[in-house]
């Protein structure tokens, strides 16, 4: 019988180890199912809204698409669909997709008042968080690692077998035991993910990235847990020490760091931009029309000479008010985005010290579900909205009729292509931290083989 086979039998005959591995496999499979369900729901929502959108637009076209139809009505009532389909790996790491909209219907009015509507709709969803594979891998898998390694050395000492084991001439006992445990944890965690990656036809390189980052992250926890387990004399002390490290690294320090970053880099809410923009638009009703048009024409000189109209109201005045409203908060919008990115960059720096933060960041980047992805979607909405305005302005400022046929000329939203990538620096730093901790634990383990009389 091979040594590995007996070692495997020893592990699997331990109730704690077998239960921990089975639980990890189950949680991993459940999280994959949960992630796939969430992604399916978003896809279904996009499909449903797309169908509704077509019906809604047809109704608007029927109502306002007349030979002498007013473009203002068409622009005001035509909501056009934008959507952000989940990436191929989103089911593994949902990231911000639970609180950020997957669909947004926009019209040619102010962009800023439409972009952040989800902040009032989805806030509650942020409270419980998401149960996805990234959560299981980053937060729960280390506990299984601890369960399997905390008594690696102390268990033998407490069981009275350590001196007998160490008296054997063979080498590589600890390496083999740690390696086997690592393999079992990695298989329990990654098998459901690998099956799902193959079944969903995810891009191989990105899928490989997920496997690599999880493998390195697990290696970090094995190194840390073995380091602690080989420095103390009692299993209970080793377990307490490792769980203490888990609490500090995954809960305490990230929370404190998050609070510090939030304090150092204040970010206003997106909804504040909506309110600011609406204030300016509403103020437009109370000021002379030339004041609004002057500001509008400063950025759209091509419509100079077409701004005047008879009567109290014209659609071009309303849309100019909205355009001016967006432009008035442009600096605030830029500052808002800059502060979001600033926070993100601090979080990446935090990952230099905290492997769990680094691994989570890498997973979300690979899955294209992080802040970068969110802003990319907003950018694509912004580009589409600009196109929409450019489409309607000739009708509005040249008083061209908007017929039913013109509805067929409305621009269509082209979904963003995705920004998933391998973040090299966080990955490299994760590798370095893991390498250091593994080296330290290897030195410690070698010391045990030398002298068990401590």
């Amino acid at each position, binding site marked *: 019988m091979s040594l590995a086979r007996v070692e495997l039998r020893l592990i699997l005959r331990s109730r704690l180890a077998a239960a921990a591995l089975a639980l990890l496999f189950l949680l991993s499979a459940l999280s994959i199912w949960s992630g796939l369900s969430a992604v399916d729901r978003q896809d279904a929502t996009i499909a449903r809204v797309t169908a509704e959108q077509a019906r809604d637009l047809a109704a608007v076209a029927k109502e306002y698409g007349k030979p002498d139809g007013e473009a203002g009505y068409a622009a005001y009532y035509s909501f056009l669909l934008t959507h952000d389909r989940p990436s191929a790996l989103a089911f593994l790491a949902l990231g911000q997709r639970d609180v950020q909209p997957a669909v947004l219907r926009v019209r040619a009015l102010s962009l800023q008042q439409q972009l952040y509507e989800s902040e009032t709709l989805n806030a509650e969803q942020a409270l419980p968080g998401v149960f996805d594979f990234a959560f299981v891998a980053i937060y729960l898998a280390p506990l299984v690692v601890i369960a399997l390694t905390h008594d690696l050395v102390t268990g033998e000492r407490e069981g009275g077998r350590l001196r007998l084991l160490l008296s054997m001439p*063979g080498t590589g006992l600890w390496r083999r035991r740690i390696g086997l445990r690592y393999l079992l944890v990695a298989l329990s965690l990654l098998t459901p993910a690998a099956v799902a990656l193959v079944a969903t036809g995810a891009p191989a390189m990105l899928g490989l990235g997920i496997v690599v980052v999880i493998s390195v992250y697990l290696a970090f926890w094995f190194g840390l847990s073995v380091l602690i387990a080989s420095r103390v004399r009692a299993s209970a002390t080793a377990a307490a020490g490792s769980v203490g490290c888990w609490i500090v690294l995954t809960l305490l320090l990230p929370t404190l760091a998050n609070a510090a970053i939030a304090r150092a880099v204040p970010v206003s809410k997106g909804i504040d931009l909506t309110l600011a923009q609406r204030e300016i638009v509403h103020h437009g009703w109370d000021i002379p029309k030339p004041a609004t048009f002057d500001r509008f024409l400063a950025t759209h000189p091509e419509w100079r000479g077409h701004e005047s109209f008879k009567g109290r109201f014209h659609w071009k005045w309303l849309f100019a008010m909205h355009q001016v409203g967006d432009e008035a908060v442009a600096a605030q919008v830029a500052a808002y985005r800059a502060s979001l990115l600033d926070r993100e960059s601090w979080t990446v720096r935090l990952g230099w010290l905290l492997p769990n933060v680094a691994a989570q960041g890498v997973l979300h980047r690979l899955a294209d579900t992080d802040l970068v992805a969110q802003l990319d979607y907003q950018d694509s909405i912004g580009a589409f909205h600009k196109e929409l305005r450019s489409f309607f302005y000739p009708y509005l400022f040249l008083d061209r009729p908007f017929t039913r046929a013109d509805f067929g000329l409305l621009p269509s939203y082209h979904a963003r292509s995705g920004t998933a990538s391998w973040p090299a620096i966080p990955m490299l730093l994760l590798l370095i931290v893991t390498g250091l901790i593994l080296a330290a634990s290897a030195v410690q383990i070698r010391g045990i083989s030398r002298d068990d009389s401590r």
Partner: protein
Amino acid sequence: MMTNDAGTPLPIDVREVRHSYGEREVLCGLDLSVAPGEIYALLGGNGAGKSTTLSALLGFIVPSSGSVRVGGIDPAADPAKARAQLAYVPESVALYDQLSARENLDYFLALARAHRSPDTIIAPALEAVGLPQHAWNQRVGGFSKGMRQKVAIALALARHVPVLLLDEPTSGLDPRATLEFNRLIETARDRQVAILMVTHDLLSAVDVADRIGFLADGRIEEELAAGTGSVRFDLNALHARYTGTRVAA
């Protein structure tokens, strides 16, 4: 390094060894040697340095000075090679309770890289130590200390090594089991194994040892060889010597 008449190194050869734990010197110039086919009983009180002597032979500690050799190999310099020469039976034989006697043997033999043909090694070894055949495939969790001891000795026999280190081997055994154990190690002696037995058990030492050494203050204070007649050792004198109630000669 001491050699025997054939010029080969002694299985166990300890010369002028000193070792300290912090300020406390535990071995203070220990000299000890065991020849092939010899049973050496090392007696001594608590803290006399018995376990440290075994640790030095196992390569667990590096002595401050002096020389330790197992079959001519320095365990501190090349522990794996030295350990390949010896089998060690700890005081409290703890095996893997989840595995059967056969599986335990199989596993430890594999660890010792002595695993050539398990069926031809394990069964004869278990048979030789007298472990009932029905117990071979039972998990050792339910074994008595004597049965565990037998598995450990079977392991030592199965490895066919020239040196056997026994740490308090009869501690906790009943008289019958002790007697059985003594017969077992005599079997090993017959195979020309050099046996160092660290023990508190004077009766057992008298029963099987070829030499008895009294360890005190980190050195052999007195060494006695077994007589050739029917009385191997003077038990009363040994007892008095051991308990510190030396009687006048």
